């Protein structure tokens, strides 16, 4: 029979590091609370019959956050054979608070005090023997990061799994104990004795989930309620507060006996760094410099920009010459002629399509590496601390900054970076708005129109950034007032972990994990869409016969574009350019780079389209078809509408919910459509280009509606209900 051991503890205590050390797997670890959101299992090294379960980090077993519900459901319903409770030795009091709750479950607990090396370095003394005597459970010292004592801790847990659980060491106030005994006697007497206490305490706290689970009769609930009420009156506080305060008071009473802190009141190195880094005056300049460096190294266009150089090389040499050359050789050796459809599919469809996306990988790896270093050091938590004030106004949190910044390079890693935001509402909002940022692939669109119609004005390029940022802000302000967002609680309490020197293996693992999930997507979603696009634009009906087409205008894609062009009529896309603009927007869904390429193909422009510099022939062709207003309307729609397939895939993965994924994509498209329509109809009315029509009225109505939604009164809700949907998902 196999033994199940659950790893439980506060966030950011090294649980995942310990899990990796015990099972030999490589889960990603961050110096950031809340890295593990789902539970993960593994087998203990050298013990094939022992299963280790890594639970999400929680501060308590309350029913209020997703992580807590996941953790406690596992503990209560699966009932592991033992709990290995990892405790941060530098933060004993708050960590023991969870321990007092774990010990009530009636499952044997072994406490592993982590970061003992730091405790000793600080000159603090911790008597684990005394702590063990007081708690009544085995206590061991470990250093998960150095691998010290970890196997011993696991073996102790295996040993404890065979024994009976010790009764919880701590008793509440007499009145409370009296009420608890009553509750046990009244409704819990047919549960195993060891489990009664946890349920009794939860019933005393009026935990709705437990009340539901036990399906108590109304008269019994009323009876219990009477007991609780009497207790509350006597102690002049509500039940939850009584329990919480009593736990902490008890911990406070034992901590003095087991632990002596020499460092109390003295500034640690981490404190000294923080005095500068989060200083009221210096914090923002330092932040700008750090972010500027990250951006410059990974995405800029200077000598230090390793990321850009690597990606240019990957695009021009690796996927520009080597890989196509290699396939040429292979296909040639296999006797497949250049004219055959298979050659076209492989070279023009797959290699070109997937290559265009994989070309970004080097740049992304550099970016991820830098962000992982910042995260491992502990600076990310400080960024959230510094930026929270600004982002909260838009219904986001300080932690939304990184996704937004990353998205100016590429939206996919930006959306993925939103995973570190714990609050459900903030995370969803960040995922929904991150795609508005003008990513690298949207820049050629701006370049094309700025060149063709606006004389290359830098104002147009700058306005692209402003449009993106404005879309984020307007959406944030607007959406946070809707019930589905406003109803969710967002208590922002955050720990600022101590700085530490980055651990290379940790940083590399984190970089690789994020990079790999991008590469995997390139191999699936993007591969498939490349094939489909290649087929749609290369095949069609000519004179009633289906086959490969010479002229793209005869392709299926063009037919689809023509059929769908009416949708964009209110945006001013009419006449000759209508179907071209429509097709370009559709191909833009596959990858935004395609928009300019598609124009090139549709206008039969033969030469290389090298973005901004010397595409003058194409410019004049575009300029002949578009006016300034329609160009702007087209630009706005393509900058803001649903991002590319890769980004949609990322949204789906991070939302982990079909309804929200469709909602996010639909919202972006709707917002883009409305914005483009307002610009064309109202702008056109002013210049006299668009006659007054029913669409003008709609445009004004949309504008007024938008203004209303942004400015309507709203009060930040403090009464919090847990989002039932997200719990049901757990």
């Amino acid at each position, binding site marked *: 029979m196999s033994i199940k051991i659950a790893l439980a503890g506060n966030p950011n205590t090294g649980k995942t590091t310990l899990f990796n050390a015990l099972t030999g797997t490589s889960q990603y670890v961050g110096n950031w609370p809340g890295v593990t959101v789902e539970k993960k299992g593994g087998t203990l090294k050298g013990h094939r019959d022992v299963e280790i379960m890594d639970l999400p980090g929680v501060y308590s077993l309350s029913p*209020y956050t997703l992580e807590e519900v996941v953790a406690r459901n596992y503990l209560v319903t699966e009932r592991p054979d033992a709990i290995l409770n990892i405790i941060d030795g530098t933060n004993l*009091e708050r960590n023991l608070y969870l321990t007092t709750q774990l010990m009530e479950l009636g499952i044997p607990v072994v406490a592993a005090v982590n970061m003992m090396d730091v405790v000793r370095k600080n000159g603090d003394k911790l008597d684990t023997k005394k702590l063990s005597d007081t708690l009544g459970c085995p206590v061991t010292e470990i250093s998960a990061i150095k691998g010290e004592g970890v196997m011993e801790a696991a073996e102790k847990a295996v040993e404890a799994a065979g024994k009976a659980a010790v009764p919880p060491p701590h008793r509440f106030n007499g009145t409370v104990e009296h009420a608890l005994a009553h509750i046990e006697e009244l409704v819990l007497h047919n549960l195993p004795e060891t489990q009664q206490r946890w349920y009794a305490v939860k019933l005393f706290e009026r935990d709705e989930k437990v009340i539901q689970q036990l399906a108590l009769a109304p008269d019994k609930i009323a009876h219990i309620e009477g007991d609780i009420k009497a207790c509350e009156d006597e102690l002049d506080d509500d039940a939850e507060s009584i329990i*919480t305060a009593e736990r902490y008071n008890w911990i406070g009473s034992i901590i003095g006996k087991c632990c002596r802190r020499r460092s109390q009141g003295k500034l640690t190195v981490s404190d000294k760094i923080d005095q500068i880094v989060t200083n009221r005056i210096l914090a923002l300049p330092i932040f700008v410099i750090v972010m500027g460096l990250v951006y410059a190294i990974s995405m800029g266009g200077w000598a230090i920009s390793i990321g850009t150089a690597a990606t240019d090389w990957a695009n021009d040499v690796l996927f520009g010459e080597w890989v196509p050359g290699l396939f040429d050789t292979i296909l040639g050796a296999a006797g497949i002629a250049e004219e055959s459809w298979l050659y076209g599919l492989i070279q023009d469809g797959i290699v070109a399509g997937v290559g265009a996306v994989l070309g970004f990988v080097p740049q992304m790896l550099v970016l991820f590496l830098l962000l992982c270093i910042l995260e491992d050091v502990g600076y990310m938590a400080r960024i959230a601390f*510094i930026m929270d004030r600004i982002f909260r106004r838009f219904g986001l949190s300080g932690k939304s900054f990184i996704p937004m910044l990353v998205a100016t390079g590429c939206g996919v890693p930006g959306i993925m970076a939103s995973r570190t935001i714990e609050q459900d509402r903030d995370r969803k909002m960040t995922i929904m708005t991150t795609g508005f940022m003008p990513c690298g692939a949207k820049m050629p669109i701006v370049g094309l129109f700025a060149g063709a119609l606006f004389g290359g004005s830098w104002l147009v390029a700058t306005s692209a950034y402003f449009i993106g940022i404005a879309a984020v802000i307007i959406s944030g302000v607007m959406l946070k007032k809707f019930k589905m967002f406003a109803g969710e609680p967002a208590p922002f309490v*955050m720990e*600022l972990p101590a700085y530490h020197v980055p651990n290379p293996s940790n940083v590399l693992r984190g970089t690789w994990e994020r990079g790999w999930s991008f590469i995997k997507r390139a191999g699936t979603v993007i591969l498939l869409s490349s094939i489909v696009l290649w087929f749609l634009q290369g095949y069609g009906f000519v004179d009633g016969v289906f086959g490969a087409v010479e002229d793209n205008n005869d392709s299926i894609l063009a037919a689809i574009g023509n059929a769908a062009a009416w949708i964009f009529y209110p945006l001013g896309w009419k006449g000759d350019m209508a179907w071209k603009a429509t097709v370009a927007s559709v191909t833009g869904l596959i990858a935004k780079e395609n928009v300019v390429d598609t124009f090139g193909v549709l206008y039969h422009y033969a030469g290389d389209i090298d973005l901004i510099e010397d595409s003058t022939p194409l410019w004049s062709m575009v300029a002949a078809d578009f006016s300034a207003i329609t160009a702007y309307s087209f630009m706005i729609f393509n900058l803001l509408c649903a991002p590319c397939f890769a980004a949609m895939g990322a949204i789906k993965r991070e939302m982990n919910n079909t309804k929200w994924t469709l909602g996010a994509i639909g919202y972006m498209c709707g917002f883009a459509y409305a914005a483009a329509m307002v610009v064309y109809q109202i702008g056109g009315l002013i210049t006299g280009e668009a006659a007054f029509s029913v669409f003008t009225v709609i445009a004004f109505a949309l504008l007024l509606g938008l203004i209303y939604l942004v400015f309507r009164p709203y009060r930040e809700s403090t009464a919090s209900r847990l989002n039932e949907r997200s719990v049901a998902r757990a």
Partner: protein
Amino acid sequence: MQTLKNAAIGSTVRVVKLHGEGAVKRRIMDMGITKGVDIYVRKVAPLGDPVEVMVRGYELSLRKADAGMIEVE
């Protein structure tokens, strides 16, 4: 009512009562801010919010809106 929100930076205050209810209140208590505990107000973020406090030997940052629910003396 004196709350943690308007406590001076560098001062140490004692919690008298927690206002509010449900998840927000529970979360604040779970983090160790309970009746009678001493809180040292360490600093405030460059833009004035959130505040960083020292409670039960560790550092915690919380928003002023939440700090306003913590009555102190």
